[in-house]
């Protein structure tokens, strides 16, 4: 008997082709759109080599040469600043942490350099014509221009140091020049750990969370079809000898199986079809998505039992919770989740979408650690609370007439 009901409920879900098609379409279409929109952004913002033009020349120093004395000689004969080939070589040897070269230097005269800048073949022009006043010419503001500014600024600091010392404490000049040879380090650079640091992957976490939350539409149908005042099937169930709680449980199980299959298809498309790097163990990602789907179905089960609301109101309430929850977990703006975490962290613990998103984020950035277990704990807790509340609300309902 129970198996028969289970098969019947399963058939009901499978034959609801429109619901199945749209649920699948949501993950496949939106996943593809997200992929098109975000796949190249992070790569393009990674450490890239900056093209720069280096203009050499014999410009006049801005400061009086006689005052600079030995310092001017040093600057003119310095292996970095006077021999443009060495200076160019040194600029070209600057590298990021991952070994990528920071600059690609092209030596040119000012006219050629300006043409290159105008055509955006280079991001800036370093003008070493006057060694006491190195200039940077840029066309627009941006991260590449900012990095160039910092590099030129460092060289200007050396120059300022030498000229200031020459002008105010010439007796220290030799020590300063020797000191410049020594490498100093005052910053301990720590890099963000984690497998995939692309922040745009967060939109895919939210997409999976939304897929899981959409499973709640199947979950809400279960109690609606057990309530005599909301559906004909509910009226029939109420006059049948089967225990309503058992019927609901079986219905929930059938809905869950169908929804899990939909989530798995969507997730497989994202991981293997589009090649989205979620970070972490793929099996754990699948298991987390299954748990998320259970949470979604249980949310629907809970809302389906709230009061004597009409089925339309219940569906509307569910839409509000899923879309509103999606917004707060970052479906529209990925940053929203962390803004909420900063200001109202409690909201991220009770918002099912945020909890699911956090689980995927934790796998990627923290691995299977305390943070991931915390997310799983909240998912399980919310599921249990929704199911228990739903079951409590489903009890002792009787109808004067059917």
């Amino acid at each position, binding site marked *: 008997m129970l198996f028969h009901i289970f098969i019947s409920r399963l058939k009901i879900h499978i034959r609801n082709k429109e619901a199945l098609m749209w649920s699948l379409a949501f993950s496949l279409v939106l996943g593809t759109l997200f992929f098109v*929109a975000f796949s190249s952004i992070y790569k393009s913002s990674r450490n890239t080599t900056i093209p720069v033009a280096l203009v050499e020349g014999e410009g006049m120093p801005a400061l009086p040469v006689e005052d600079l004395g030995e310092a001017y000689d040093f600057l003119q004969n310095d292996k970095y600043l006077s021999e443009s080939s060495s200076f160019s070589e040194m600029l070209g040897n600057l590298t990021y942490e991952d070994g990528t070269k920071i600059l690609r230097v092209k030596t040119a005269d000012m006219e050629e350099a300006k043409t290159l800048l105008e055509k955006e073949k280079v991001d800036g022009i370093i003008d070493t014509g006057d060694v006491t006043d190195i200039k940077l010419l840029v066309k627009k503001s941006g991260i590449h221009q900012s990095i160039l500014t910092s590099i030129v600024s460092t060289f200007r600091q050396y120059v300022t140091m030498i000229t200031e010392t020459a002008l105010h404490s010439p007796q220290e000049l030799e020590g300063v020049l020797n000191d410049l040879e020594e490498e100093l380090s005052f910053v301990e650079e720590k890099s963000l750990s984690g497998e995939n640091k692309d922040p745009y992957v967060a939109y895919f976490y939210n997409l999976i969370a939304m897929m899981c939350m959409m499973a709640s539409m199947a979950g809400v149908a279960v109690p609606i079809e057990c309530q005599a005042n909301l559906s004909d099937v509910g009226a029939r169930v109420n006059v049948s000898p089967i225990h309503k709680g058992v019927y609901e449980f079986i219905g929930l199980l059938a809905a869950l199986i169908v929804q899990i299959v939909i989530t798995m298809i969507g997730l497989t498309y994202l991981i293997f079809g589009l090649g989205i790097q979620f970070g972490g163990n793929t099996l754990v990602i699948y298991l987390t998505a299954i748990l998320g789907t259970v949470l979604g179905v249980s949310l629907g089960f809970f809302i389906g039992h709230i009061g004597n609301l009409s089925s339309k109101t219940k569906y509307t309430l569910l839409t509000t919770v899923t879309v509103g929850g999606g917004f707060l977990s970052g479906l529209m703006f990925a940053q929203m989740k962390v803004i909420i975490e900063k200001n109202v962290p409690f909201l991220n613990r009770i918002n099912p979408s945020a909890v699911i998103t956090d689980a995927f984020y934790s796998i990627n950035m923290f691995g299977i650690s305390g943070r991931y277990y915390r997310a799983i704990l909240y998912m399980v807790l919310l599921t249990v609370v929704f199911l228990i509340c739903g079951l409590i609300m489903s009890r002792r309902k009787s109808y004067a007439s059917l």
Partner: protein
Amino acid sequence: MQVFKTFFKIAWSYKPGLFLYLGICAFMTFMVAAQFGNSEGEVKYGNESYHIAVVDKDHSTLSNAFVKYLKKQHTVEEKAYDKDLVKDLIYYTEISAYITIPDGFEKNHLEKNPLKVESLSDSGQAAGVFINIQLSSYLESVARFERAGFSLEDAVANTEKSVDFEEFVEIPGLEKENSHPNNSISISANGSKLYSLFLFLPYPVMTILLSCVLPVILVFREKEIRNRTSISAVSETACNIALAAGGAVVSLLVFLGLTIFTSCFLGEDVFHGKWAYAVLNLFLFTVVTAMLLILMDSFSFLGIRKAMDVLTNIIALGFSFLGGIFVPLSVLGNGVKTVGKFLPTYWYAVSLERIDAGKGFSELAGCFSMELLFGVVCLALGLAVVNLRKS
């Protein structure tokens, strides 16, 4: 008139959707307005300004000077966060770096046994590299000046003089362009307030019209209701005109509501030329979205009424992400922009950029035309599908 009145009765039953999306819009408006209200850092030409968090455990002359320098370069938040939250903040690009100045920093510095400043960032990103170069450069310079015999105050003063990029960065008579941090996923605060507040309005326009107007029209397309209407005294044309009028009134109300609400945050920028163009841009977008509803209505036979939530999300989110509404156009790749050119949201965002740059109507007309063209295509396709079905 009967159909017109019924339209509103049914539309009112979809009020939760209306309030949900209006709530999202209000939340986003407050966020954007707050970004402008709290902005400490000024984006200086030639240098990129980032949001960073600094924890000064030393509170000494040196650390204060260092923090002051950082405040001049970036938007600095002086707040300590727990380890996990710091990672979250950097990952989601809410901050680009988390800098900790250790206790005893100045004391050790003066004793020639310097403690290192800790900088946590995504070093694979240019922003992280840039900030770390800045930090190293400043601290190294102060130390070298001190070694050269300068006092701490003079060392700091000389360093600040040498790092003042306005002294050495030149712009060879070329036009200034707006740019955005490459890895930012935040709501853009790099344009003007008008630009940022109007940029995301297509999202609420699309979601509200798709979730509150389209379902009402689709109710009238249901077989039973359609049959009843066809044998009633109301002709099919009159019914369609009433539905179109109902849709137009709701669209107009949504447009007016969003315009008034957003304008409340603009202060004295309201009623200026740029504002008028931005409002015109939004109006055109609302008209185009209304035309899109006609196209979707023509596909009512596919049973799309049951999938309105899914469709609303797919269309509104898809159009917004591909059109540069949620992620600035400057960040999107060329491929995405090519796809975006077929969407009204792209032309809306481009128009808004041009409006923000102070362009006149002649330079906006092209974008407005492209927006309208999308609407006209939708309208034509919608009518063609209806005619095809009838035949």
